[in-house]
């Protein structure tokens, strides 16, 4: 009997997961369908840009600075063995622009802004604000979800670019100012190795994809949360876990597509 119930539990889990994916896809479609309204009322997006983008600035800048400094320090120690300290700029810049900028910014964004979005919408649902809106013939997806979705999609590439830029500055601080790598070769080798379309634009595309996925997961979990205190806290946890895993898996897929030929 124990075997039967285990098999039943596994089957139930799988069916449930597929069900949720289907509902999430429909949710995504509805969000896109109703986003026309939110572009006409752009101040809603601006308000959400403030709470997702501007409020994430400090954590992004500080984290970027330290990640860049660590890259500079570790890169120098390794490159020194091969006598190629002058390639430090290349290593820091490519590492940040291609991978660490989009991925780290997206992870921070998921835990800083994504969790807040889920908690906010979950609580709106628990306090029946969403039902009240439906009562007043206000579409909650157009009024609440779509502005947050577009704010996330817009702010993610900007945050990732800031992360990379600040990180490169951090690498410069440690590599050139503190350790004393030659400044000319730091910048010139970086410029020779980093290609605008291949590296920087691919990083921007990555962060756009991450922004879409993270905001979608956060909004869906919030909208789907059971309207209880427990339900909201569980949904917030799921947002951070699911979106972090989604970011890392998607990063592998995107990297395989983008940089294999190089």
């Amino acid at each position: 009997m124990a075997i039967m119930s285990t098999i039943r539990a596994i089957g139930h889990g799988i069916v449930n997961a597929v069900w949720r994916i289907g509902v999430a896809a429909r949710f995504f479609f509805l969000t896109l369908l109703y986003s026309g309204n939110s572009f006409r009322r752009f101040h809603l997006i601006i308000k959400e840009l403030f709470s997702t983008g501007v409020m994430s600035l400090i954590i992004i800048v500080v984290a970027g600075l330290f990640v860049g400094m660590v890259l500079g320090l570790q890169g120098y120690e390794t490159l020194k063995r091969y006598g190629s300290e002058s390639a430090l700029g290349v290593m820091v810049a490519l590492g940040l622009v291609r991978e660490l900028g989009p991925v780290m910014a997206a992870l921070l964004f998921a835990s800083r802004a994504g969790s807040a979005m889920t908690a906010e919408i979950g609580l709106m649902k628990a306090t029946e604000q969403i039902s009240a809106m439906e009562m007043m013939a206000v579409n909650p997806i157009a009024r609440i979800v779509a502005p947050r979705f577009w704010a996330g999609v817009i702010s993610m590439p900007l945050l990732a670019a800031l992360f990379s830029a600040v990180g490169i500055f951090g690498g410069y601080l440690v590599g050139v100012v503190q350790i004393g790598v030659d400044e000319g070769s730091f910048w010139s080798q970086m410029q020779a190795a980093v290609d605008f379309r291949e590296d920087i634009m691919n990083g921007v595309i990555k962060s756009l994809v991450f922004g879409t996925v993270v905001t979608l997961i956060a909004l869906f979990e919030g909208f789907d949360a059971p309207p209880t205190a427990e339900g909201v806290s569980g949904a917030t946890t799921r947002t951070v876990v699911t979106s972090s895993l989604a970011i890392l898996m998607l990063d592998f897929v995107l990297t395989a597509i983008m940089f294999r030929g190089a």
Partner: protein
Amino acid sequence: MERTTLDLWVGMFVVAGIAALVMLAMKVGNLGSYNVSETYQVHAYFSNIGGLKPKASIRSAGVLVGRVTSISLNTERYEADVVMNVDKRYPFPQDTFANILTSGLLGEQYIGLVPGGDSEMLKNGDLLKQTQSAMVLEDLIGKFMYSKAAEPAK
């Protein structure tokens, strides 16, 4: 429409993000250098290009004067056809010599141009006739071993 402090903050955020992107493009990437100036195109045949890649630099006296645009195999001569864009500011004589060189011991390969003495200058679409191929390590070792073997035993 009413302007609020919120708009100011969001505006600052967007400006900072775009500034970071522009800074990445100009200072970190290669958009700032070399795409703006006008170029003329010349090509050259090499019997072996070694590890030369498109976008490799073209240098004369160590100064960056252009970039390799494309590399293909010419099946009439069975030699590599290297097309390069050279900055219009730097005219080179017709009998310019093109070498494939390596920066550093294991570094990137680039094309070095050594100007000749012709009074005619290169035009768009011209062919560089005198070329020297890349040094391939196996060939060098092979030559060295043959010359050692050819030496009379002492």
